[in-house]
């Protein structure tokens, strides 16, 4: 496996090339941005021609899309989903709500900064980003994967304590399994 971007061997380059060609999205819509996903995936913008399509379960998925605002209640589910995904996994923060809270910055039940709770590889800004922007975001993610820089999952493993601390600040009643990495 790749440990840092400088140690990309020939096998890694081939693996990353193959990996970026098929990105399976975890079909979990958290906020209003989920409404932009159907036009992206269906015939109008047809993201499948770029190797992007939906997956039914977290264990089959590569990409977790956080589409818009994230309520504290669904943060619990998102963390659970993210930790169930298989190791080369990527997170795309979708819309301004994931970046700085957006129009819900002073809401008592939505988090403001997504990257304090799970690592984010690519942010797509806009409220809401159009399907073109979503596809551009995926293209950026593909670049990062090819160059070996989409290492959010690695960051999560390394800084698990820190992420856990932030997560437990929001989720007071922690009733989830503590995974063993």
């Amino acid at each position: 496996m790749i440990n840092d971007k400088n140690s990309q061997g020939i096998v890694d380059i081939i693996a990353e090339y193959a990996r970026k060609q098929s990105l399976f999205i975890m079909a979990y819509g958290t906020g209003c941005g989920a409404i932009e996903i159907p036009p992206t995936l269906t015939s109008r913008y047809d993201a499948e021609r770029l190797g992007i399509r939906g997956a039914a379960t977290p264990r089959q998925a590569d990409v977790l899309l956080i589409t818009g605002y994230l309520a504290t209640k669904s943060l619990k589910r998102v963390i659970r989903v993210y930790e169930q995904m298989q190791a080369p996994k990527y997170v795309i923060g979708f819309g301004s709500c994931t970046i700085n809270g957006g129009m819900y910055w002073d809401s008592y039940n939505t988090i403001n900064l997504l990257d304090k709770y799970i690592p984010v590889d690519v942010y797509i800004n806009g409220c809401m980003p159009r399907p073109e922007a979503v596809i551009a975001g995926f293209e950026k993610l593909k670049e990062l994967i090819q160059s070996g820089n989409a290492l959010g999952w690695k960051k999560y493993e390394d800084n698990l304590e820190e992420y856990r601390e932030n997560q437990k600040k929001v989720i007071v009643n922690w009733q989830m399994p503590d995974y063993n990495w």
Partner: protein
Amino acid sequence: MENKELVLENTLVQALQEGFTRLEATVKRKARVEAKIDKDILPSLLLFAKEKLGYNHLSHIGCVDWIEDGLFEIVYILWHPTEKINLLIKASTERENAIMPNIDYIWRQANTYEREMREMFGIEFPGLVGRKDFILEDWQDIPPMRRDFDTEKYVNEHFFNRPGREDAKDVREQVAKRSGEDIPEFAKKYSRK
């Protein structure tokens, strides 16, 4: 001329006042009648409206926080399907240790509204079914829809802020600055400093 148009509404007001002595009923406009009553006799008024007057549909239950008067006002909106009249029944309770009669035996759907009001305003409904968490999970602060709940303070304590938005914290002031208008006197006390 106007009275002729409001025949049904005036009959309703009369019927309510005959049935209940401590009740203020007024016709607000066409198809809207408002009645204010003590919370102790509220269930009997609701039963009376449902069984005798035919207001058998409960459209909505709302709660208004009158923090200046120290009151919660609960509004029950009933609907008559054939006469097409909305009947608004209002009852108040103290903000401290607020208790309202539970009416989910009259309309079962009232249970949902009451669970929400219990969680969002902290009003207790004795005998309410389903007293566990409804919408909020792990809530430890005062109920968030109360007007004395400081949302910004809560957000600053519990969530992170990305730096760079200090200029746009108070929307009211920003809009006033941009449009070149003054903030009205009554709105100034709600401005965030």
